[in-house]
């Protein structure tokens, strides 16, 4: 062996870099709960009840009944939004928002309502940060060729407050997970976990960095063991299963579901979250420009094991003045060193983003600009989020 370059300092930095690369808070327990949901039921029951041979079948029936009762409770009290594993936001878009209007879901958990919030709570909203998302890491010269949507003179902004510990506990308790469970090392004070018979709930507070509001994840930890599927799960079957699951529990079935993956590995049915903008519903996105979803996850045999998404919180809206088109076209370039690569933004649409601040947050309108760039012999996608409210309205 020769040419064995030694660089202890660099190796120390690499150790630190990999050691500090961690999943988001709450992920460890969410995944573990999902794994427990996949555990053969007989094995679980034997663990719990000492392996008595006649117990498992009885426990199966009881466990499923508890799950169903708990989830029906959730339904009737207005819970039940999920989102992608890294995203969230309330589906309620105003104190008078209408369920199902324009495809938007509107569910309000009474235990989380905020009657004392109103327009007077506004006046100091934070500004949506301008973000650029792309896998290209060099400098960029952004060029906007997309026609901008015609914006009204004002758009609604919705305020919410971060739920208290008692409210989160009530939310979990009403859904069958009344006992607070130990937090894992990966969790922070921003995440709270509850456990109950057949149900495990984690609530994570707003994430200002990722433009995500309060999120919850409900795992059903008692479901039948995996059965060999006669045929791979199709997208249409997954959609039907998700809709049936939501309907069975009296949860609203949002419009425009999309299916991710599918087949023998299972599927996730994604329902995009929409916010009541002007003149109609507007999709909500996160800091990377990805849509925020209600998400129903199921195994390859179609058995649903997780519903996740934005925590239902009451919001109250107020109109804010929008920027001029000329101001919106002032898209900043990125500051990375080296030569700048021109990126053409060819599409623009109105979206909403959750901006956490001041013990709560705001659903604030923004423009999502998308396009592509050519560099290093490859094509990169690019997404840029720019605020649309007049900067004088934010501080």
């Amino acid at each position, binding site marked *: *062996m020769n*040419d*064995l*370059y*030694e*660089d202890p300092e*660099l*190796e120390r*930095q*690499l*150790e*630190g*870099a*990999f*050691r*500090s*690369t*961690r*999943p*988001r808070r709450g992920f*460890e327990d969410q*995944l*573990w709960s*999902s*794994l427990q949901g*996949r*555990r053969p039921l007989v094995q679980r029951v034997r663990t719990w009840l000492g392996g008595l041979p006649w117990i498992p079948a009885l426990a199966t029936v009881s466990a499923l009944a508890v799950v169903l009762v708990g989830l029906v409770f959730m339904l009737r009290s207005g819970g039940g939004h999920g989102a*992608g*594993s890294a995203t969230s936001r309330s589906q309620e878009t105003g104190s008078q928002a209408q369920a199902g209007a324009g495809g938007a879901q509107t569910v309000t958990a009474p235990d989380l309502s905020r009657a004392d919030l109103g327009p007077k709570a506004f006046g100091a909203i*934070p*500004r949506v*940060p*301008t*973000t*650029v*998302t*792309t*896998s290209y*890491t060099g400098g960029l010269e952004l060029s906007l060729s997309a026609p901008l949507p015609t914006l009204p003179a004002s758009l609604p902004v919705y305020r919410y407050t971060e739920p208290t510990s008692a409210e989160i506990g009530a939310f979990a308790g009403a859904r069958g997970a009344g006992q607070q469970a130990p937090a894992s090392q*990966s969790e*922070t004070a921003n995440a709270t976990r509850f456990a109950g018979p057949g149900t495990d709930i984690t609530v994570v507070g*707003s*994430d*200002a*960095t990722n*433009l995500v509001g309060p999120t919850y994840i409900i795992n059903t930890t008692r479901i039948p063991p995996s059965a060999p599927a006669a045929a791979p799960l199709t997208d249409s079957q997954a959609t039907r299963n998700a809709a049936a699951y939501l309907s069975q529990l009296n949860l609203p079935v949002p419009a425009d579901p999309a299916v991710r993956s599918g087949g023998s*590995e299972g599927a996730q049915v994604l329902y995009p979250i929409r916010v009541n903008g002007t003149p109609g519903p507007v999709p909500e996105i996160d*800091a*990377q420009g*990805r849509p925020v979803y209600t998400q129903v996850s199921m195994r390859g045999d179609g058995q649903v094991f997780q519903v996740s998404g934005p925590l239902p919180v009451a919001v109250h809206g107020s109109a804010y003045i929008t920027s001029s088109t000329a101001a919106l076209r002032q898209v*900043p370039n*990125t*500051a990375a*060193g*080296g030569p700048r690569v021109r990126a053409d933004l060819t599409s623009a649409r109105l979206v909403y983003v959750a*901006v*956490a*601040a*001041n013990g709560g947050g705001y659903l604030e309108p923004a423009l999502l600009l998308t396009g592509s760039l050519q560099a290093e012999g490859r094509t990169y*996608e690019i997404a840029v989020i720019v605020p649309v409210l007049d900067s004088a309205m934010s501080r």
Partner: protein
Amino acid sequence: LLGGSKPPFEELYREFLQRIYAYVRAQLGNQAEAEDVTSMVFIKAYEAYARYEPRAGTPGAWLFQIARNACLDHHRRAGRRERLVRTLGGQPEAQADPGAMAEERLQYRELMELVSRLPDRQREIIALRHLGLGFQEVAGVVGGSEDAVKMAYHRALRALRSALEASEAEAGEPR
């Protein structure tokens, strides 16, 4: 969790979740995709654990092998790579990540970006080596001889050092 013993799966899970995530993240770059793939890794491992034979290798090497295959599958399916978020405007005030964690992330961000630009094989070897595997185990995961893996590792180190120096020189120039 040395070879020859078979710990409870939860012990394996708690021990390796962060490392598997860090490996997957280094291969994919994107947080959400890394979480999806990490989930798939542990689901597959969980379902296969009853059949796992410790004598065939350490649990860590076994998990990283599953993770590597999952990343390759993901690349084949998705055909796309890392997405990074760069914030140009003011961040929302207050509730950002805890200070220490944020500082640490900032400190290592540039280095991880350079790692992400390494050739696939070098990137895998650097990640596996710095996530606790010995050279022999790394060779078992990525294929090839132990000597060849060592050579690739040291070449990757040299390439990273050169890239770091170039980046620092560039940062010192006026823009």
